[in-house]
Structures are given as structure tokens and as C-alpha cells.
């Protein structure tokens, strides 16, 4: 239930502006890959191109290939809607649907495309997804209450439950803990460790300790200056990146001598 992603020579543009230049990267199935780098270096932009969410931004486009187990996401006739149902996403700020109950939030993705689901199946799925997101025990008595009544960390786990309910191949996380307190962050990090048994996880983070704690591989992105495109500087085992990086820029960044 998880697939690998291979990116070949990907350029991302906003209109005429080249935002991310020439990224090639191989993301293993059932692993956690972290993207680190200074603000504005294009790591979130790049993450969005992995499930075509960048197309929401007017003028954004890509050149190159993103292969999900060999199938090009940008091939002819590929529907972004299908891509996104295979590659889920968790955002920086928790965004449960405010008008829906906790239960309906979990089922939101499953009910798309006119799919019908019986109440019994739905109950099983809600419980399994919420347990998968380590949230079941906290919300099982109030499934019909609005999702917006939960704490920030609980809301973020609800969003993860919503993402895994559709059984995607890959889960992308765009700074999922940056709006959360340390205890909620720990809960999410534990969860990421469990998720990689079943899913391919890609996480963007500003927190280098977090990258070191949760990821198997780390990619360091950097930008030469304002108006220049972001680039992938170095990609390797997390341990190597943090203890013995090849590039000077990487070493400066992970040791805090940079920006």
C-alpha cells in the first residue's frame, strides 16, 4: 500500500519566475524523507508538485517528471484529482472542515466521487483511521461534535486520520508541527514513526531536530539569494546529512552557522 517516488529534472515556475531548479530525487517506499532548508528555498513548493497541489496557485507550472512507481504524474491524460487521492497531504495549519463533525471529517475523502459506503463500513473505517492517527481514545465519545472544537494538536491528528482514511500511497506533510506545542509535536512525531510501516511519508520541516528524529533520509534545499531559484543541495541518509555532509553549505546549515 505504498509506492516510491522518483523525480527527474524537475523545474518549478511561477509564471516566468523559476522557483525551483533541476531537482532529481528518489524517495523510497515505506520510509520517511525530510526536506530541510531556509525559508523561501522552495521546499514547500517542491513538496506541492509531488501531488500537483501547486496547480492551485495561479501561474504555477512544472517541467520534468514525477514518477509514482514509474507512472508519470504529469503524463498526458493524468487527472490531478486521481493523483491527489493517491498522494495525500497534511498542511502547516490544521484544517479540519469546520462545518463537519469529527466523524464526517474522517469520512470526507472517502465519500468523494459519489462513492457509497454503508454505515457499518463507515464506523469501522472511522475507528481504524482515528486509531491510526492516535486520536481514537480522545474523541471516541464525541464523534458527532465539530472537529474545530479540538485542540490544535488533535485537529492536526484529525487531518492525518482524514488523509489516511482514503488509503493513499504517499502522505506529504508540509511543516505539520509548526503551529503546535511541544507535546502535540511529540505525538505527531510518534505517529510519523508508525505511519512509515504502511506509507511513504515526505515531510517538510524547519525544525532540524525533528528531521533528525523522524526521517530516514534528508534532503537539504538552499537558495543562492533573493530572486534566485531554490536548488536541491544534498540528499542522503539523515545520519550522514547531520553528522558528515558532503557539501559545505549543508554542514553550515545543520550546525547552525547559516542564516
Amino acid at each position, binding site marked *: 500500500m505504498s509506492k516510491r517516488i522518483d523525480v527527474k529534472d524537475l523545474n518549478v515556475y511561477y509564471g516566468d519566475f523559476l522557483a525551483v531548479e533541476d531537482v532529481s530525487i528518489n524517495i523510497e517506499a515505506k520510509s520517511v524523507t525530510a526536506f530541510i532548508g531556509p525559508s523561501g528555498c522552495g521546499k514547500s513548493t517542491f513538496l506541492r508538485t509531488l501531488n500537483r*497541489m501547486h496547480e492551485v496557485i*495561479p501561474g504555477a507550472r512544472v517541467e520534468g517528471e514525477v514518477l509514482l512507481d514509474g507512472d508519470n504524474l504529469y503524463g498526458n491524460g493524468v487527472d490531478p*484529482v*486521481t493523483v*491527489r487521492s493517491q498522494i495525500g497531504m497534511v498542511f502547516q495549519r490544521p*484544517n479540519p472542515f469546520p462545518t463537519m*463533525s469529527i466523524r464526517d471529517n474522517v469520512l*470526507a475523502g472517502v465519500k468523494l*466521487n459519489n462513492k457509497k459506503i454503508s454505515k457499518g463500513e463507515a464506523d469501522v473505517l472511522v475507528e481504524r483511521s482515528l486509531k491510526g492517527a492516535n486520536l481514537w481514545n480522545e474523541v471516541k465519545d464525541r464523534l458527532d461534535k465539530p472537529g*474545530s472544537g479540538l485542540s490544535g494538536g488533535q485537529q492536526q491528528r484529525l487531518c492525518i486520520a482524514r488523509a489516511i482514511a482514503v488509503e493513499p500511497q504517499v502522505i506529504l506533510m508540509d511543516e505539520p508541527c509548526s503551529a503546535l506545542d511541544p507535546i502535540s509535536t511529540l505525538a505527531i512525531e510518534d505517529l510519523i514513526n508508525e505511519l512509515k510501516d504502511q506509507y511513504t511519508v515526505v515531510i517538510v520541516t524547519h525544525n532540524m531536530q525533528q528531521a533528525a528524529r523522524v526521517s530516514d533520509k534528508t534532503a537539504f534545499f538552499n537558495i543562492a539569494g533573493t530572486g534566485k531559484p531554490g536548488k536541491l543541495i544534498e540528499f542522503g541518509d539523515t545520519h550522514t546529512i547531520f553528522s558528515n555532509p558532503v557539501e559545505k553549505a549543508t554542514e553550515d546549515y545543520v550546525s547552525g552557522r547559516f542564516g
Partner: protein
Amino acid sequence: MTATSLTSTQGAGRTGDKIFSGAALAAGCLILAVLFGVALFLVVQAIPALTAPAAEIQGGAGFFAYIWPIVIGTLIAAVIALVIATPIAIGVALFISHFAPRGLAAGLGYVVDLLAAIPSVVYGAWGATFLAREISPAYNWLADNMGWLPIFQGPASATGKTILTAGIVLSVMVLPIITSLSREIFLQTPKLHEEAALALGATRWEMIKMSVLPFARPGIISAVMLGLGRALGETMAVALVLSSGALTASLIQSGNQTIAAEIALNFPEASGLKVSTLIAAGLVLFVITLAVNMIARWIITRHKEFSGAN
């Protein structure tokens, strides 16, 4: 002397605060005072009609017998207007906010707003001279084919000056109100929620159903209620378009009347008790509008828990 500096209330900002809160309070009170003044005027002027012997009121059967047919007529016209205008307005607003290319959206929004700038007497003239004539064949068809429905009972009006025509003209008039407000609300939908839906694999329409419409629901209700207010109170267009008469169930025969048009048509020649009767009719319209708005508020607050405001 730290204690005195803590308790002292002098400061440059304080005066500004006082002026501002005073001005805001005054503005709030002014609204209430005006509303109360209007209500008081209506009640005082209406009392003679409400207390007069039944035989002296127009129609000779008392104020209630006089007012209820035109209350129903008013509601029929307004409901027709909203039934036609609401789906179109929401569709146009969604098209402008989420589907149209940006250049087209701006132009279209401008054109819709222009509809609101046309004086109601122009709408009335258009409805009476053009729309009524052009639409009467459709009424004949309705009478022939759907005449078994009481609302389409024949024979259809030859001039086309019916309550349905008036409702259609009203729907064009309330369309820009509902469209503009809905469009603004749709544009305010948090990007966060739209992206949440898209990232789950929602199509654009599913995204709108999941995030935009639930977010906009209270706003749409408010917009429709504003439109309803306009439709209930619209005078000139109805007075010109509708060939009024007694209350009839059929929408395609001449007949029916609205409160506002009734007042406008009769007021210039009225005197004495007749004036009082018309003002009492105005009071009834005022109460209906108030009730409609309160019901709308109630609908909006009923779902507060799920509104996303918490």
C-alpha cells in the same frame, strides 16, 4: 507614588477612546431611535383604520379582509422572485469566484453590479411594455399543458401583466444583490479549507460542496434575506407591471396585488380613513419584513456550533 501613577487615568489616547466610543454609541442609538420612530408613526397613524367599524374600510368587510389578500400577493411575488433569482445568483457568484478566468470574472462582476444601478421604474417599464408582451405565449402554453395545476390555471392573461411577470421582473432586480454578496463570501472562503478538500482528491465542484458552500451558508442566507427585503418592498416595478385585482391562485391570470404597489397606487388620491388604512398596510409590511429577518437570524445561529467561528 507608583500607586498613583497606576490609578491615574490621564493620557493622550484616552480622549480619543472616549470620543470614539461616544460616537459609536450615538450611531447605534440613532439607528434604534429611527426604527422606533418609524414604528411609532406607523402604529399611531394606523390606529384609526384598525379600530374603525368594518363597513367603513375599503371593501366594507374590515381591515383584516382588506389586508390579507395583498399580504398573500406580496409573499407570492417575493417568493417567485427568490425562487428564480437565488439559484441563478449563486451560480453566477460561484462562476465569478471559482470558475471564470480572472479577466472575465472582473468584467462579469461589474456587469452584475450594474444591474443594481438601474432605477426600478425602468425595470417596471421594461416589464410592462416588453417582457409582459413577449412572455404571454409562454403563459398560454402553460395554461394549455399544465392548467391542471391551480397556479397555472387558464385562461392566461392576454396582456401578460400577471403576478408571475412581476415576480420575474423582481427576480432580475434582486439578482445583483444576492450575487454580489454571495460572491464576496465565496471569495473569503479560507484557502486552507479549499486546499484540504482538493488534497483529498476532490474535484472542483466537490471542493465547492465541501468547503465553499458550508462556509458561505450564513452569508447566502443573509444575502437572500436582503434580496427578499427588496422584493417585499419593491413598489414601482410591481405597480407598473401588474394588472392588479382580487387574490387568485393562478399566477398567469391578471389579479393579485402587493402591499407596496397598493399603497403607491392609492395614496395620491386617498384621504381620511383611507390614508390610515394604507399606513396600516405599511405597518403590516414592516412587521412581515421584521419577522423574515428574525427568522433568518434564527436559522443562522441555529448552526453556530458548526460555523467554524469557534
